[in-house]
């Protein structure tokens, strides 16, 4: 009897609560069992798609460094030993970390968009169509980057779920572009139904109707120009796309909600101060102190001292580019920091360095003084570019500038003049009397002046078909760099990251990589 009692005592506790004993209960994260449950959850999921921009490989310092280095006005910073320095030096390989992180962030973003599109449709949340439209707009942006940077690439439209969906083959650029335009058209159609949500100047970094239209216009612009294929050919564009570029630019202008800030520098000050300027069509938000901060100024501006506005100066420009500005062009001294900072005050230096500092992402008073990072928002689309695109489209369509084309480009030039030289005709005079090629030359220069260091130049040079010419003509004054001698046609695309290539043995690497 006693024995039995003891045995029971020994055994009994195991029968208590053995149900669910081995079930895993996550405490600190959400799993498929409980997310997403409602429309707000869908919003939270879509938010995370914007987080990939924080990796600075799609926008931000890493992307800017690379996209500036690969142009006719980018020169190297002091340090070549860091990873971006190595990348700038055209000793790139597919094993480098940089193309891999660009690729990874783009596809991470795509997967999140796919996830939102799938799950919102499946759960039929109220207001889900808005979420899907925004996700499609964002997905289109990622795919524009994918096809521009890498050429042929996997085309994923469903969220990856399970091992079976892991490996896919590369789709052609044309197929990717088809999806981009389809996404953008669908997004546009929905967004136009919600003007109070989407047809506003900006939504503080979210994709808007204006951004979607801008992507569309840009996509058509790329489709009208040259590209390098993954197999190594230069593929000519279809000029008929210029009509779409023109029409969409006109639509954006007709929205009537964007305007050029009379002061060029205000636009960038507002980026730093988190004021959403009416010129900004889409910008990527960065803030201080803890989350999502980035380093464009650290990479570009003159070396800092405590309490000053500078950065590290790891990416620079050339004296030639500096000199090509009109001295009274307000864009020159904001974009290029030939001098140093005394606090927030920029003191231009007398002597011109051969490699002046880039200064567009400098700090301004009013949003804290961070010695290392910066809350500077990153411009993606500015209204000024709409005018330049319109001007270029009209020149292409009519094989020469029209009056409207002159108006468009001169609007941008007018704003760039310093306030006391607006109309005296000595500074950046209005363009007039140009033929097709000289107007195109003017566009090529004007885009450099207006959009310098904003990440557009590299793709511009490629679509104009002058990337190799311009880089091979580059006068490099830094010993050992020799950009002009090292650049090759295959540099127009990034290599498929080696690891990715290893996992997809049937893929072919981009030509010559």
């Amino acid at each position, binding site marked *: 009897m006693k024995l039995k009692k003891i045995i029971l005592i020994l055994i009994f506790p195991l029968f208590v609560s053995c149900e669910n004993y081995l079930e895993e209960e996550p405490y600190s994260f959400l799993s498929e069992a409980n997310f997403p449950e409602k429309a707000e959850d869908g919003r939270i999921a879509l938010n995370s*798609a914007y987080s990939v921009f924080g990796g600075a490989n799609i926008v931000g310092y890493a992307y800017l460094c690379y996209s500036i280095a690969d142009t006719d006005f980018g020169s190297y910073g002091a340090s070549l030993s860091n990873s971006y320095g190595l990348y700038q*030096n055209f000793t790139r390989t597919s094993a480098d970390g940089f193309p891999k992180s660009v690729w990874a962030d783009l*596809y991470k973003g795509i997967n999140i968009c796919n996830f939102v599109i799938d799950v919102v449709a499946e759960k039929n949340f109220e207001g889900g169509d808005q979420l899907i439209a925004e996700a499609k707009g964002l997905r289109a942006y990622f795919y524009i980057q994918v096809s521009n940077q890498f050429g042929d690439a996997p085309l994923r439209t469903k*969220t*990856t779920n399970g091992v079976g969906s892991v490996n896919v083959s590369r789709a052609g650029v044309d197929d990717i572009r088809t999806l981009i335009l389809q996404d953008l058209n669908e997004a546009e159609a929905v967004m136009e139904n919600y003007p109070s949500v989407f047809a506003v100047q900006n939504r503080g970094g*979210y994709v808007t109707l204006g951004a979607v239209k801008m992507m569309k216009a840009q996509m058509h612009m790329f489709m009208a120009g040259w590209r390098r294929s993954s197999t190594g050919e230069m593929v000519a564009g279809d000029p008929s796309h210029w009509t779409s570029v023109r029409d969409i630019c006109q639509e954006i202008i007709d929205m009537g909600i964007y305007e050029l800030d009379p002061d060029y520098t205000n636009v960038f000050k507002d980026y730093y101060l988190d004021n959403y300027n009416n010129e900004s069509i889409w910008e990527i938000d960065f803030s201080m102190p803890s989350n999502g901060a980035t380093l464009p100024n650290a990479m570009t501006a003159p070396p800092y001292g405590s309490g000053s506005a500078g950065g590290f100066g790891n990416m620079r420009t050339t004296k030639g580019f500096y000199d090509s500005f009109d001295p009274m062009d307000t864009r020159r001294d904001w974009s290029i920091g030939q001098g140093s900072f005394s606090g927030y005050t920029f003191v231009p230096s007398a002597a011109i360095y051969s490699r002046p500092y880039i200064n567009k992402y400098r700090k301004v008073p009013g949003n804290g003084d961070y010695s290392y990072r910066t809350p500077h928002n990153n411009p993606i689309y500015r209204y000024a570019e709409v005018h330049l695109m319109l001007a270029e489209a009209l020149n292409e369509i009519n094989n020469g500038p029209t009056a409207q084309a002159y108006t468009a480009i001169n609007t941008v030039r007018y704003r760039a003049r310093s306030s006391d030289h607006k109309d005296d005709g000595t500074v950046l005079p209005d363009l007039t009397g140009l033929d097709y090629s000289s107007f195109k030359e003017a566009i090529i220069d004007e885009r450099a002046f207006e959009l310098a260091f904003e990440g557009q130049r590299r793709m511009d040079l490629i679509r104009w078909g002058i990337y190799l010419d311009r880089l091979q003509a580059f006068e490099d004054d830094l010993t050992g760099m020799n950009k002009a001698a090292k650049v090759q046609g295959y540099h127009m695309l990034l290599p498929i990251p080696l690891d990715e290539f290893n*996992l997809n043995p049937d893929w072919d690497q981009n030509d010559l990589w």
Partner: protein
Amino acid sequence: MKNKTIQLVIHTMKLSVYVFLIQVLALNLLIANDTKGQKTISVKQAVVSVNMKNASLSGAFKHLESISDYHFNYKGVDINKHKKLDLKFENALFSDVLLQISRKYKLGFRQLNDVIQVVKFSDMEDGDISEISMADVDITGKITDENGEGLPGASVVVKGTTVGTTTDLDGNYKVSVAEQSILTISFVGYKTQEITIGNQSVIDVQMAVDAEQLEEVVVIGYGSVQKKDLTGSVASVGSESIERINTPSLNDALQGMAAGVQVTSSTGRPGEASSVLIRGGSSISASNEPLYVIDGFPQLGGSNLDLNPQNIASIDILKDASAGAIYGARASNGVVIITTKSGSRGGKLNISYTGRRSFSSIIKELETIDIVDYAKIHQVRAPLDEQPLYANPEQWADSTSIDWQDEIYRTAAMQMHDLQITGGSNNTKYSASIGYLTQEGIAIGSDYSRLNSRLRIETDLNNKLIAGVNISYATDERNGPSLNGEESAGVFILKARPYIPGGPFPGDLVDYVDPDVGTGQTATNPSRWLTGNDALRNQLTFRTINYLDFKPFKGFSLRASGSMSYNGTKNRSYLPSDVGIGRNYNGIANISHNQTTSWLYENTAKYKFTVSNHEIETLIGFSAQSTIGESFGVKSQNFPIENLGYDNIGLGVDVFNPSSNKYKSTMASYFGRVNYTYRGRYLLTASVRYDGSSNLGEANKWGAFPSVALAWRASEEHFIQNLNVFSDLKFRISYGITGNNSIGNYRSLGTYSSANVSINSAQVLGLRPGSMSNVDLKWEQNRQLDLGFDIGVFGGRLNITADYYKKKSNDLLLNAPIPINSGFTSFTSNIGDIESSGYELDIRGVVLNGKVKWTSQFNISFPSTKVLRLSETDYFFTGSWGHKSSVFIVKEGEALGSIYGYVYDGVNQNEDEVTNLPQFGGAGAVGGPRYKDISGPDGVPDGVIDSEYDREIIGNGLPDAFGGLTNKLEYKNFDLSFVFSFRYGNEVLNANKNFLWRPNYRSGGLKKIMDAWTPENPTNENWAWDQDGIEYNNVSSWLVEDGSFIRLRNITLGYTLPSILTKTIGIERCRFFVSGDKLMTFTNYSGYDPEVSVSSSMLTPGVDLTNYPNQKSVTLGVNVTF
């Protein structure tokens, strides 16, 4: 699915309860007959009535047994005589009956208690008067051990009979025997002695330790066996070896001591434990750490903090599947069973104190450049306008250079104090210990202290119930930053410039503005970095083990036990605004706290019985356990007021989001084992464990882990014994399956991870898919075959144990890389197989056994691993340092730990070589490095060095062989021991060369820099200085060095004061010793120490990236026992 699992669980539980009850009942019945009381009535007094006709002798004995309380023992006497017997007695004395039998069969009888021993009188004539001898002598005495302590439980048996008794708690015995008998006295671990009684009535015997140690007891899972009865492969390390180690880390005690156990002490950072790898690795991504079992309880997470080596009685390492399988799903990396010291019932109070004081210093200093070298480099490397600063290098010859290693590394002191009390009363045994240590790190700014204590009490509640508690408590504190990594003090120390014009000097403890250039860049002063970087870690471990043993009858025991443990770790750091990246953020403070709380509930039932020549021991049991871990962390930066640091983290102006995390993991298990021995020669062990773990996928929560082992003790066979060669000869074979569930929590679930976004001028929450779910996730499974033999020759003075094993790990959990265009980087599933195999040899000998006692032990292991299968691709890369990833490769058909890179092919000596030989990336320079052109897209060398075709395996961080040699000598009161450990055939990836062989005009570096290539010095060893733009970070064979070494791990000289001297002042024993650790290392490795590894992963061993260097030390100590 879920219901099915639950049903299965309940069903299994019920089943095992029934089995348990049936077993208990059956045993009860079996034993029921055996409950006779002691009868000591003399045959000359006992009265019987017998009536038998024509009976056989054996029949007569049986009949007499049935009508009396006596048993006949006729072992060795032929009783199958043809003579038939008639017996007819009525109320006669039993002795008269025996007398009649005696006469007829010429047999004599002796009564020994209730046993009647039958003896031959072969020389007697028929009809002669025979003899009935009686047990008429009472012998008493005391059996003592080698120290004169009473030896409880020793067996005192009359030779040639089964008659006898065992000693009581004090070692006393009392037995009634016939005169002229011979007593055989035996006890496990001692030499059996035979004493002729003669006419003595008090016989005290002091036992001598058996040199053969065949009777040594080895602790296995849920019990212990005599070493001779061991069927599996188990390595044991005794307290003598453990105590000798002068470091706080338990694992250090194992280095070089046991075959198949590879211990790596890769860092000299105080408070860091060495890593232990048993029989190579069996996993790619799950843990390769063995399971630790402390006083019978599997460790439930947390640290080994409470395990003070001085407090450990023995360590037994279960290596093969047979030994380990009783721990089922956690045993595939081997099991380390730790038994702490305990008292003994009736033992006398024993107080022992050991004190140590050691002095440590860096194991080796590296030669660095001086100011003249610095100036020479400056001449070549600095920009033109800065070069005049050091125009004439030789003019600096008289200036004092700073050797930063001298500034940073010091002779560090350590104190260890350990106090231990053991003892017991008649029904209780106890032990208590307390240990305290303080240790300076050899690098300034680092130190460590630890306090730990343990209390064990076991008491008999009554003659059937025993209760025990085992409580340990330990805290420690570690101070000082890590020196690991590319951006750490380890680098700063070697890269700091040897000269700072005008100061500040190391002792000024401020970072200095680089004086040579006008950029105002601040350079890191390593002294300041180490002393200013306030990093503090505190740990606390509390563990309690409680058990109740119920022993209702002989051979049977039930144990119910429970254990709880708590482990807390608190990390705090403050990086001031003038140190490192603290400058960029104006001070950074971090606080994090992790804790795990666990409980374990476990029941076992054991029954051991003998049926004639069959010895059977059975065990069944079940256990359930649960671990909850929680952590939180806060961070802030930008401190206007700095002097409070992390103690007031709220003073930081920029506060980061706090973080917290919680997890829970549970296990439930059923297990059983049978040990069967036939005639002490044929041994069988079979065990099975059925484990359920929450970590695994919904579909695969449960797994079974069976094993079986056979052993043949050939030395027990007559034909072997007749050879008179072997004192021991045993052959073993075992096969079994173990598992590894150390795969982390929640790995099977699809999860969302947070990705907060700054948008619309605000921080908003974002959640994105973080991992894909895998409901099929299951254990890693490890099938292991072990073949071994044990040989003892020369009367047990030479013992050899050899083992061969082959393990195949299936279903390896692989966080396998998947194409990142999927949006994920990896997917966790069971897709790998690896195979490891090896030979192990252990030789122990008593070289001298006279006045000088000399024992020697040597062991060596030859492990190898091979990857059999991976995911869809047949390889993946792992490991990284600095800007380089893909340093190691895990590839089908290759060993783990394979270093992957270019094959260094020397320096380009001239323009011809640059143009004509393949160059990295297609471009090279005179004086620059060149690599071998291994292949190309067409499978043949293509003249270009690229990452895809021109890398190969250039080394392996795991050794081909390792082992140790231990010698112990004793002469009079002196003892001397020395331990060598060695490793052979492993390569070290000396990543430091990248930083330290490359000159930079504003930093220091290794002296080796000065041997760089120049046209005048056409070396191929180190390329030229002025090679900016050359990719010098490549992982190549240039960085790979041989890491083989032989090390004098420990040497100890001790002197024990004569006991005559000490006993007068009440001291039982007093020993002084001086000891040296790692005093000598023989190696070709050029860095600090070849036993280096910045990561403890099996996949990335042997990377030297400015570790906290190892230390060597000298220790003085005293051990006093009262």
